[in-house]
């Protein structure tokens, strides 16, 4: 039996050698893409274009502008001369926020009962940068408030420790964005690589009419399935190793947990995704169909990796559903092993869930694919 499986694997590799673009894209392309995407998205939100209309033109208003620059979130555009300039820039999407410092700002600042006011205009057409801008501006306002109060009370700043709670970030002390974006991006690329590759396994043979030939040969369906799976697992695993090296060396993602545990669990995860891909592969009659199904399945899974939205904030139904998604547990495992230095004692619920899902999906896939082949 082993010899027959071996000959099937050889057959698959001959296909791959003939069409070497595909494995090359899947292996190197995925890693390169991760490098590019990680490079582009693993930074804090900075450099947001901000326009200032300073109608006061005093030392006080300039100190506000400096404070805004010091938040590190903004890149100041040239000063606006009137509100029309601001409106035009907002309409064109050239700026994410604008600040108007009204005349009389400095007098209000100095007066003991004054209310210096600032007008903040946010560009709601891009809510993510607008929210970041608002947070930065509010933070700055808190500091200014405190300064004014202390000054009015005649207190010394050193007497008052401030309103800001002291903040510590665990597992990611430098608050590097790369540490939470790149593992999720790695998860996404790995999932698509395995799913796509597996989904093409039978749909391709069927479309090209070679599946019949394969089935009349003296192979059992078990042997065919294993023979088809081995190249997928090899490419998927090599892809994982390559991308892990990439996030570690290029983006400084640490491996704080057990390094031997990581590939073992990765292998388990790849097998689960492989089973899903195989089901897609026998459902689809053409490669085109297989691709469209992979798209839907893969993106549905990606929603639960916590990349753009935390799972706890989703509707309750989706939160329960998340537990049935292998990618959800895999990301928890990966974050735990890479960033938190967690071990099996902590991660066992996720590992167990992945194992159960793997058994469930694997059994279903196995029976389904076999029936389809027989």
């Amino acid at each position, binding site marked *: 039996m082993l010899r027959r499986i071996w000959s099937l694997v050889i057959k698959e590799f001959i296909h791959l050698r003939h069409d070497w673009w595909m494995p090359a894209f899947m292996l190197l392309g995925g890693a390169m893409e991760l490098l590019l995407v990680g490079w582009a998205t693993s930074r804090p939100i900075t450099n947001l274009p901000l326009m200032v209309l300073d109608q006061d033109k005093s030392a006080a208003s300039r100190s506000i502008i400096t404070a805004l620059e010091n938040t590190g979130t903004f890149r100041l555009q040239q000063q606006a001369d009137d509100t029309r300039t601001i409106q035009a820039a907002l*309409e064109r999407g050239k700026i994410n926020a604008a600040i108007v410092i009204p005349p009389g700002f400095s007098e209000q600042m100095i007066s003991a009962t004054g209310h210096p006011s600032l007008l903040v205009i*946010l560009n709601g*057409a*891009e809510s993510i940068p607008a929210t970041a801008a608002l947070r930065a501006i509010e933070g700055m306002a808190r500091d200014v408030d405190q300064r004014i109060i202390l000054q009015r009370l005649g207190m010394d700043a050193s*007497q008052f420790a401030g309103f800001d709670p*002291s*903040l510590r970030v665990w597992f990611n002390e430098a608050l590097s964005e790369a540490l939470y974006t790149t593992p999720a991006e790695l998860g996404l690329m790995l999932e698509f690589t395995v799913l796509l590759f597996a989904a093409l396994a039978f749909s391709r043979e069927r479309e090209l009419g070679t599946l019949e030939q394969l089935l009349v040969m003296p192979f059992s369906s078990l042997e065919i399935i294993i023979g088809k799976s081995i190249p997928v697992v090899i490419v998927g695993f090599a892809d994982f190793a390559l991308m892990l090296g990439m996030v570690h060396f290029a983006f400084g993602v640490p491996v704080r947990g057990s390094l031997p545990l990581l590939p073992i669990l990765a292998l388990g995860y790849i097998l689960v995704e492989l089973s899903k891909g195989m089901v897609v592969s026998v459902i689809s*009659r053409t490669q085109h169909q297989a*691709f469209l199904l992979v798209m839907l399945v893969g993106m549905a899974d990606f929603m639960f990796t916590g990349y753009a939205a935390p799972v706890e904030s989703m509707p309750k139904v989706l939160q329960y559903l998340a537990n049935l998604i292998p990618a959800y547990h895999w990301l928890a495992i990966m974050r735990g092993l890479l960033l938190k230095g967690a071990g099996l004692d902590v991660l066992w619920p996720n590992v167990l869930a992945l194992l159960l899902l793997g058994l469930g999906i694997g059994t279903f896939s196995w029976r389904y694919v076999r029936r389809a082949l027989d």
Partner: protein
Amino acid sequence: MSLRHILAVTRKEFHHIFRDRSTLVLVLLTPTLLLLLMAYALTVDIKHVPIAVLDYDRSPTSTTFVQQITAGEDLDIYTYATSMSEVESLLMRGKIKAALIISPGFGRDLLNLKGIPIQVIIDGTEPESGNFAVDHIARRAEEFVNQALASQMQAMGLQLESLQPLDLRVRTWYNPDLKPRNDLIPGLISMVLGLPALSVALTLAHEREHGTLEQLMATPIGRAELLLGKMIPYIIVGLINVIAIPALAGAWFHVPFNGNFLLFFGLSAIFLFAILSMGIIVGVFMRTQAAALALSFLVVFFPGFFLTGIFFPLASMPEEMRMEALMLPGTHYAVITRGVYLPGVGLDVLWPYAVMLIFLGVVFTGVAALFFRKKLG
């Protein structure tokens, strides 16, 4: 170039699509389904973030403080921890996203104006919710301290007009509540409309894989005609989604559409031309569907998701990546979709992006036609 030839190819292509019902349904529905999926999952407002509270002070002041911090839907108290090691274990297991630690002497220090001795720990692996928790705690803490200060000052006989002298008047244009849905859904349209480009790359590779390209080349149809003819059915597929998605977004998600729909429709057609020509390039270079698929994921799909500024602002990207982003049709189209949707701007503002899309489309199709000839020898 003759229109009759182009339409002949288009008819043939439609034949392929209609012959296989399940592919037809998938090709038509995938963009809208994908958008629906992402709209549900990605545009949630962050709330119910689970936190732990470790109160070393246990004074009436600290109890009130905790109550005030966790009022509303934003933060949920997962548990009252009793020790640091418990907090550590909860964070490790991902049960909580942040922890609030109140030092002993909290109530006393607060009254003596010594600042607020609290510490917030966040889980740095998912800062999205962690940052939100910190922000929320900081704001509520400030309100609380202000109240305490006010009563303290009254007791001391000090007069202070206000504790928040700086009057911050925030106006948010176009999307007053800063609902992520209202701008992410228009942005995501640019991503899901990239799917027909992957399909067109596949069909071109399909012809080559099945050897039918030779037959096509033996007909009097020119190369550019063939490529354009192949694009048209998928432009139509895309445009059907351009109607379906805003209808769905408006009826189901209540995303306002402030601009001119006809303009949006026209610009979408231009975008589809540009993005489909990217797919055509992939199809021209790759000999098998598998390879075309892998390559189009790399050059069309992933960049369309990550690099077009939908989630991550272009302004914050490194210079080189911004350059690359500007070469993607999706980047320009995302500006158009958001511009038409929210500020409701017209062609007077959007023309540079439309010009850029036409330019990219013409260049991509030109490159494809050029190499198509060479490849066929």
